[in-house]
């Protein structure tokens, strides 16, 4: 059958096809390989951190030494040697950070151009596009734009390493208040060695005038990425934050352990959207990013709302559960997720909705797509505490299988300790049907495009929650991620 040969050759070709597989040649300063207290002192000193920050890191490191890696997720990967990685790499001369894009290393700008992020254009179109980019390159944020406009509104949007100096009272108050230092193995590791990330503060009553956007990119060989993001929405404020990542091609497995903390006070709303496209490894399962992420939002005040939307198409291993603590009465948590795994990718992802306050509501829509020999697991917890009177949850988990060598798993945990709670769970598993594909092709739509069309249709309920700019990128990614998955 010619179709079978075609599949084989397409799958073989996939190794070279990773669209964002390129590397930028930039000199970097690295911490020595391995991890001990000296590494942490090195990182802290590099950033000129105050003592309290160093102490916080060291405390985390000592606790981490006592912890063991979690093994409950449905993912398999070789033992990680934590001493065989670099924990800090900064682009050349971070001390004299560029004042404008003109001062930025041209290689770096080229990288962004390849990624389709027109930074220069965005700056020129400042008033039109209303998208601010705090571009994080490896570990140190080198470009921050649109600061002035944000400052007018009183919004703080800066690298967290800067916030440690400029707003220590806010960092001290909120850092680790949602994801405690000892929360889990990877979060604790991140607390010890976090390199940089974003800090966002929206003052009381302010509606952030633009979508805040950060593009992440792993660039240095063997460099663990330990991003740390902290977003605080004061009473009655609103912010939408976009996080997107792609990564250059490489052979070694790369460890990525980010922590994101969101705090929504009374009547505040945070919308956090992610498109994750780290290098997934080649068609044989070699290489790719290990992505162990802790993301959690705290609806601390009454009537607050936190909404997570994620499109996960990359990484060899994904371990990620963006969660909401619904502490304030009438608070709302949402989780909209698309997870696509192809070839040998493994994803174990989902959410936790912890209902503590009265009349709290949560909504979970998860779409898992598995192709090749990939494994895709939804793991979720809905927990209703005794004081959470009249709490409500709606969960919908749909899985789509492409081919017959992949797997989809759904592991929902429901703990309801209040009889007035209403918890609904729906789950479906379906296969991309040969008939549907043929129907599309008969109308003239090529096979790859047909798969993209069908899968985008399957994901529509989630895609429509993404901001416009992201939705377009995400739809393209769906196609790129599934290239060569049928034949």
């Amino acid at each position, binding site marked *: 059958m010619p179709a079978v040969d075609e599949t084989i050759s397409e799958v073989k070709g996939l190794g070279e096809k990773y669209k964002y597989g390129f590397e930028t040649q930039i000199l970097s300063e690295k911490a020595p390989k391995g991890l001990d207290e000296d590494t942490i002192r090195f990182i802290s000193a590099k950033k000129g951190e105050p003592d309290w920050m160093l102490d916080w890191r060291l405390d985390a490191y000592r606790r981490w030494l006592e912890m063991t890696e979690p093994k409950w997720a449905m993912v398999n990967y070789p033992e990680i040697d934590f001493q065989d990685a670099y924990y800090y790499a900064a682009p050349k001369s971070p001390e004299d950070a560029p004042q404008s894009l003109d001062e930025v290393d041209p290689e770096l700008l080229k990288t962004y151009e390849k990624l389709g992020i027109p930074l220069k254009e965005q700056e020129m179109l400042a008033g039109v596009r209303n998208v601010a980019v705090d571009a994080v390159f490896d570990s140190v944020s080198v470009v921050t734009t649109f600061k002035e406009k944000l400052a007018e509104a009183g919004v703080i949007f800066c690298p967290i390493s800067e916030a440690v100096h400029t707003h220590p009272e806010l960092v001290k108050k909120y850092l680790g208040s949602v994801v405690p230092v000892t929360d889990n193995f990877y979060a604790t590791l991140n607390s010890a060695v976090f390199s940089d990330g974003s800090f966002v503060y929206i003052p009381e009553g302010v509606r952030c005038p633009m979508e805040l956007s950060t593009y992440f990119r792993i660039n240095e060989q063997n460099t663990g990425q330990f991003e740390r993001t902290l977003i605080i929405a004061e009473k009655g404020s609103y912010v939408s934050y976009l996080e997107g990542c792609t990564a250059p091609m490489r052979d070694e497995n790369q460890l990525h352990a980010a922590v994101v903390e969101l705090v929504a006070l009374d009547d505040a709303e945070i919308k956090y959207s992610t498109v994750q496209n780290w290098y997934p490894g080649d068609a044989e399962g070699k290489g790719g990013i290990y992505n162990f992420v802790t993301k959690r939002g705290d609806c601390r005040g009454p009537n607050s709302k936190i909404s997570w939307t994620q499109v996960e198409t990359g990484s060899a291993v994904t371990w990620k559960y963006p969660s909401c603590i619904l502490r304030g009465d009438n608070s709302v948590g949402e989780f909209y997720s698309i997870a696509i795994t192809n070839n040998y990718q493994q994803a174990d992802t989902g959410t936790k909705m912890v209902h503590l306050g009265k009349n709290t509501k949560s909504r979970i829509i998860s779409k898992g797509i598995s192709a090749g020999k990939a494994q895709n697991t939804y793991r979720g917890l809905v927990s209703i505490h005794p004081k959470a009177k009249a709490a409500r949850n709606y969960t919908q988990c749909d899985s789509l299988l492409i081919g017959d060598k992949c797997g989809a798993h759904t592991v929902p945990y429901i703990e309801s300790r209040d009889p007035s709670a209403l918890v609904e769970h729906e789950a479906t598993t379906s296969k991309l*049907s040969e008939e*549907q594909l*043929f129907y599309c092709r008969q*109308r*003239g*739509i090529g*096979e790859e495009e047909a798969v993209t*069309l069908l899968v985008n249709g399957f994901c529509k309920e989630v895609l429509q929650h993404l901001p416009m700019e992201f939705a377009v990128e995400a739809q393209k990614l769906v196609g790129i991620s599934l290239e060569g998955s049928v034949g």
Partner: protein
Amino acid sequence: MLQIKDLRVDVDGKEILTGLSLDVKAGEVHAVMGPNGSGKSTLSYVLSGRDGYDVTGGSITYKGDSLVDLDPEDRAAQGIFLAFQYPLEIPGVGSMTFMRTALNAQRKARGENELDAASFMKLIRAKAKELNIDAEMLKRPLNVGFSGGEKKRNEVLQMALLEPTLAILDETDSGLDIDALKLVADGVNALRSPDRAMIVITHYQRLLNYIVPDYVHVLAGGKIVKSGDKSLALELEKSGYDAIVAEAA
């Protein structure tokens, strides 16, 4: 336009078409009738290029070239359209999106300009109006929750939009009540043209009262056993397949 010569087709290793020959010229409407299991659907799938229908002998020539090695999407771009017996539901994909994607894919394959959203909207609204199709239907995901009649009318709309040169209608009458059947047949008749050939596959003569064919063929045991004009369909209706097949054998 289409010449099928001594065509043999295997499905799952079993020979379903056993030497079928058929000659269709532009502007003609051919009805292919036959009992269950005679190979009617196999004929529609092998012409449109579905996987799993392996040509083991004979030839299919369309506009002078062999069709056999072409992918379904390439055949579609060359003007072959199959109206499905059971149109597929495509959840989450709006009818408009689907049809625009299809039309633009075909135009691109033919080296024509793709239509932008506005021009497409104008075009599809005009086509829908000609066929008396409510534009509201176009806003819904393709075929999802459509009634049997709506699905078949949507197939005719797609045909009107894509303007094929060879349209194959696979049991378009199945599952339709008489009113829906008339509507669909009116749509098909509106698309009859000197440049367009049609192959109408059906069990029953009923459809042919509305879509009047130039030729009628009886398919049995994987080949055409008898051909004639529209009166053959009436004869079939009266005496049944068995008599005709026995007489031909």
